[in-house]
């Protein structure tokens, strides 16, 4: 019983604040951990890396190793690293970097030290921030409310399929695809079958969490030539279990829902904006007086919500 949320603004604005509200209203659905995928303003050049380290005592040496690997792939820091100053053993780091010559090769090497410090996300816009605790705790620790952007996802996790830890939190980055993230409410029952197939193709997974699989599965289908819409439709027949997931990229947010119509999603759409959440009461936090919500509660449903800015440019 996790809670998920999506938000699209029709221009850059306080998407961090909105997602915190949406997740705070759903904290009862799972307070083991909370996470956010936020599409912030792209840098003039390069990309953003979000990292999680697992032993603060080794922060300096771990970060040195991360930077060494970046440099060996033609990248480098564009600004000083930003590191959280919490008292927890684990720590988070935000980097702005010159784009690696080959993202896939870089992340493959960076993953060799993922037992010490793990790349949570990479992209020109995407930033994944996640941690143990409820929405307010995570928002306070990581200054989520002040984050500006165009769109994003949120997740409140009740751990059912894997452990309670900062790294098992959602959202998941679709490793190694830049700027793709996922949140998921449900259980995938043919997880190991698909994981084996994807690993044989060279994909790596950082957790035992079935949601991580979905992000890579969809991105792999797109790499093989399907559109996002086609990949979402295919997921409904190929992925077994009960699920509602939302996948985001630079262009917007997509949704797929299983054949059994078990996991809800309520949306409010207006003038290029989207508020989406597992529960209507979360939508009320953003739009207390709007009653024209839509319930995605039928079987085998898919949907794509594009950014209005992208639509206008097309």
């Amino acid at each position: 019983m996790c809670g998920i949320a999506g938000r699209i603004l029709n221009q850059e604005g306080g998407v961090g604040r909105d997602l915190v509200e949406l997740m705070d209203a759903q904290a009862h659905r799972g307070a083991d951990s909370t996470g956010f995928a936020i599409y912030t303003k792209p840098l003039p050049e390069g990309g953003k890396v979000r990292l999680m380290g697992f032993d603060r005592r080794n922060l300096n040496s771990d970060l040195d190793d991360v930077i060494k690997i970046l440099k060996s792939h033609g990248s480098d820091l564009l600004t000083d690293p930003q590191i959280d100053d919490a008292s927890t053993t684990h720590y988070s780091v935000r980097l702005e970097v010159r784009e690696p010559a080959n993202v896939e090769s870089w992340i493959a090497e960076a993953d060799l030290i993922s037992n010490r410090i793990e790349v949570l996300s990479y992209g020109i816009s995407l930033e994944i921030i996640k941690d143990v605790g409820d929405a307010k705790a995570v928002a306070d620790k990581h200054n989520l409310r002040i984050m500006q952007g165009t769109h994003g996802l949120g997740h409140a996790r009740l751990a059912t399929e894997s452990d309670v830890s900062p790294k098992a939190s959602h959202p998941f980055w679709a490793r190694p695809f830049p700027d793709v993230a996922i949140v998921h409410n449900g259980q995938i029952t043919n997880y190991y079958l698909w994981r084996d197939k994807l690993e044989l193709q060279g994909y790596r997974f950082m957790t035992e969490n079935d949601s991580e699989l979905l992000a890579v599965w969809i991105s792999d289908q797109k790499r093989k030539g399907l559109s996002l819409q086609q990949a979402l439709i295919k997921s409904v027949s190929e992925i077994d279990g009960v699920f509602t997931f939302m996948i985001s990229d630079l262009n917007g947010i997509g949704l797929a829902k299983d054949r059994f119509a078990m996991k809800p999603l309520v949306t409010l759409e207006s003038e290029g904006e989207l508020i989406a959440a597992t529960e209507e009461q979360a939508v009320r936090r953003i739009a207390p007086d709007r009653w024209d919500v839509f319930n995605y509660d039928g079987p085998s449903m898919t949907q794509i919500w594009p950014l209005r800015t992208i639509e206008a440019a097309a």
Partner: protein
Amino acid sequence: MSEKVIQVGHRDIRIINQEFLAALEAGYSVVVTDTLSRHNLGVGLPQSGKIHFDGSVGYYCGGLNTGTDVRVENNAGWGTGEAMSGGTITVNGYSGMSTGAAMLGGLIHVKGDCGPRCGVAMKAGDIVVEGNLGYQAGFMAHRGRIIALGGAGPSCGDALWEAEVWVAGDIESLGVDAKIVEPEAEEVEEINALLKQLGLEERFRDWRKIVSEQKLWYFESRDANSWLMI
């Protein structure tokens, strides 16, 4: 009957429900404001009285109702009227998944559409839906009637027991072990009388009555092959 206004906002639901009970038992008609689609509003209502939720409600509104007339001005979330045994619940908008789950009596009247598994495992009572039924309407429903003036989604009447699903519009597909039978004239009269009581337009409707085909009723069988015949 004098009226009492109770505001929900972000207050504690247990305290709010206690306020509902106290007001209804004191003979007030209750109007509930600032509902914010919150869960568990009006659970365990008493055997008489009226309560009007002036907005949308979340999960389980009117659950375990024993006789109160409940009105929801807009949408209702999952499990509206779950295990209710009396009274009525009227939802002006959409009613979410498992409306009337395991209900034991009373009436639920939805003016919009209903989500999946409407009337799941219901034991008695009526659910009237002016719009469409969602996926698997009547799933494992034991007794009672689900009546839709609109159509029905996929797997209608899946694994029904002795309940009936009545559909006036199109049916996307029938569920496992469900079949359409010709309704008796007296049964149609009963349905029409109920609709009239709810103030719904009297006119001809091409009713399809869905009941169990009873092929799933081989509970005494130890022969696995018999299940393959279904």
